[in-house]
């Protein structure tokens, strides 16, 4: 789900070496080196420049940018790793505290510094794999990069990293599980909170406070209202009061130590507290959709089965948000659950499953859970 990007990631910022030890990153580097060898790459550059797209360089380094500033992780075939990040030199000690990479460099322009790194390593000319540069790097920086690497062979290597990230290690699953626990806790806290004057901002304050107190690095909240307003889409919270007996859908995504989980729940304000409406009608459909997550099943088939299940009980699935996608270092990552998707479900995927639906009698609802596809089948991690 697309959410509003904050001006700063301002939650708990640590590298927990037990949850995600250096060995985990070294394993990833070793796998990448094998792939580089196979594909004839002498260097690989992974780029990102904002708080929604930090995943690829973070996958190797554990570094995230907290504001919209560029960063590149550079890996040579020999296994040397450097982290080049835009920012001030005085921020370097803070960066070094959250990454195992020893060669950390701060700069004003990550493109120029990447070229300096490649030159220093004697890698111009060479064959260089690129992840994220063409899609996300500001055009002037990328043009400079292209001009400076005219003698090199450039290979798009996004697919290589995507295929690695799509299957989560046990440690990654545990991180998503921790994030999911915070999501569930924040919903629980909201339902325990009483107020005679709930408004959208107070919901955000209650849920955000709980998430950040539980150690969230980032928390994103969206709301949908069903009060006769034409626009029922999820959107950021505003200073608008909630009326008694009003139904709202709340989306909460939490990032804990780099990994995301999300949950969506529809609640009703009764007297002075939010309670769960009788949502069995929609909930049972969501449960059946989740049960359909089976290792080896084609994703397109899963999507068409979900639509058929809904039609059979006269529920119309609203197409806006889709049925979900992978979740992990990104809030939205492969696989994307779409009837056009060619892949199959695999063990150790983490998925954000969501259902926006309407029924003539029961009205509209949005709900969703974060699910781990384990050896024993789908396991709901959020359980909201």
């Amino acid at each position: 789900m697309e959410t509003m990007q904050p001006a700063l990631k301002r939650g708990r910022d640590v590298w927990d070496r037990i949850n995600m030890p250096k060995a985990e990153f070294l394993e990833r580097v070793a796998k990448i080196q094998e792939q580089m060898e196979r594909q004839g790459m002498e260097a690989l550059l992974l780029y990102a420049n904002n708080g929604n797209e930090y995943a690829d360089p973070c996958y190797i380094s554990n570094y995230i940018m907290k504001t919209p500033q560029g960063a590149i992780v550079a890996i040579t075939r020999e296994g040397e790793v450097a982290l080049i990040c835009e920012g001030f030199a005085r921020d370097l000690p803070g960066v070094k505290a959250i990454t195992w990479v020893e060669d950390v460099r701060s700069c004003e322009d990550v493109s120029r510094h990447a070229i300096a790194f490649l030159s220093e390593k004697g890698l111009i000319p060479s064959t260089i794999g690129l992840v994220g540069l063409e899609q996300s790097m500001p055009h002037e920086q990328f043009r400079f990069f292209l001009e400076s690497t005219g003698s090199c062979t450039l290979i798009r290597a996004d697919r290589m990293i995507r295929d690695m990230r799509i299957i989560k290690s046990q440690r990654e699953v545990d991180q998503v599980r921790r994030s999911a626990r915070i999501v569930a806790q924040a919903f629980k806290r909201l339902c325990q909170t009483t107020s005679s004057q709930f408004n959208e901002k107070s919901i955000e304050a209650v849920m955000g406070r709980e998430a950040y107190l539980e150690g969230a690095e980032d928390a994103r909240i969206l709301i949908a209202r069903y009060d006769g307003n034409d626009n029922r889409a999820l959107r950021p919270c505003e200073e608008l009061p909630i009326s008694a007996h009003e139904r709202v859908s709340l989306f909460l995504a939490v990032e804990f130590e780099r990994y995301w989980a999300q949950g969506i729940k529809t609640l009703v304000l009764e007297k002075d507290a939010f309670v769960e409406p009788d949502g069995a009608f929609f909930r049972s459909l969501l449960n059946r959709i989740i049960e359909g997550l089976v290792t080896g099943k084609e994703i397109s088939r899963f999507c068409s089965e979900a639509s058929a299940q809904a039609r059979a009980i006269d529920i119309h699935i609203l197409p806006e948000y889709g049925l979900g996608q992978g979740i992990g270092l990104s809030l939205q990552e492969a696989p994307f659950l779409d009837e056009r998707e060619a892949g199959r479900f695999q063990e150790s995927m983490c998925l954000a499953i969501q259902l926006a639906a309407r029924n003539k009698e029961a009205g509209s609802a949005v709900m969703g859970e974060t699910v781990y596809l384990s050896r024993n089948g789908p396991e709901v991690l959020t359980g909201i």
Partner: protein
Amino acid sequence: MSYEDRKLQKALELISQKGLDGLIIYSRGTCFVLKPFYFYYFTGFRPMGPNNAIVISKSGDVFLLIEPSWDAGRASQKSWIRDVRGTSDFLGDLMATLKKLNMTGTVGVAGAGEMPYTLYEGIRREMVIQKADHIIEEIAREKTEEELDVIGKTARIADIGFQAFLKHARVGIREYELLAEIESAMRLAGADDIFNLMGSGNHNYAMHAPTDRRLVPGDIVIGEITPACEGQFVQLCRTVFLGNPGSVLKEKYDLLVRALNASVKQVKAGSPAALISRAMNGVISEAGYGKYCYPPYMRARGHGFGVGSIAPGAVIDDDTATVLRQHQVVIAHPNQYFPETGYLACGETILVTEKGMVRLSKSETKLYSREV
């Protein structure tokens, strides 16, 4: 003429003056405290998705293209622009819109610096692009009464954030828990974004995102408390000591307050922004800390705030020649490293007027302490 009509009218005048076929105002949906947010300024709508554009033709047609497509309804409600379309093929729909509006020669692009290569090249293949950030900067440089109302509200929220800082900065609380409490208080008060940084310890070197560290007696807790409403940021830089501060700490903080007071006296429409920095550095240098007023210890002595323009800019230092204008908003912060005390936070956001400066927040700038 409404606020929005005035903006559009000025934009059309500048499009005509520059001989452009029209203007694209682009956003990647990111917001940074040290950069203007042209798209948000012009539409009054803050986008979520990775690609968004306002298209303005020289004849006055205005079109809004929004990603993700399901956010177009919110855009229609929040923006004054009536012609809004959600898209899942941004480049394709943008090019179709440009052609429909006969923008096929030279177009200005505000926010081009954010554009990724594929998108920029996609446009450049079909037409000539001129960077046009200056068009929005020129319109937005002086804040309007409507913007000043929002800034006043944001300043009140900053005070609420500081009260939460003071209330919750106590022995045993972790840094991230402290920021969670400040954030919650400011959200409840209406903040729609927040840029808070902090540090704690008996000798700090910088402010940073919060860690697991628990506060202990004798800690100097420093914070940048920065709420935003409708894209307008207001900042307070504050220091709280846990315990009874010693004479050295008091003396150094008093020095910073004197530096702040000397600097804000220089703030007046028509004065160069550098005077803010020079006055600050003068007071601190006279006390024998001149070396610590410059890199690598210190970077900027302040910067502007705003949605459409952060003039006088992202850095106010001794060399900032930009002249301050009426109704600009700047933070003056003699945040300073001292070898005896470490890094201390001290600063506030001020409004530039023709008569001088106006402090926007109510909370006093001084060294605060909590009994332990």
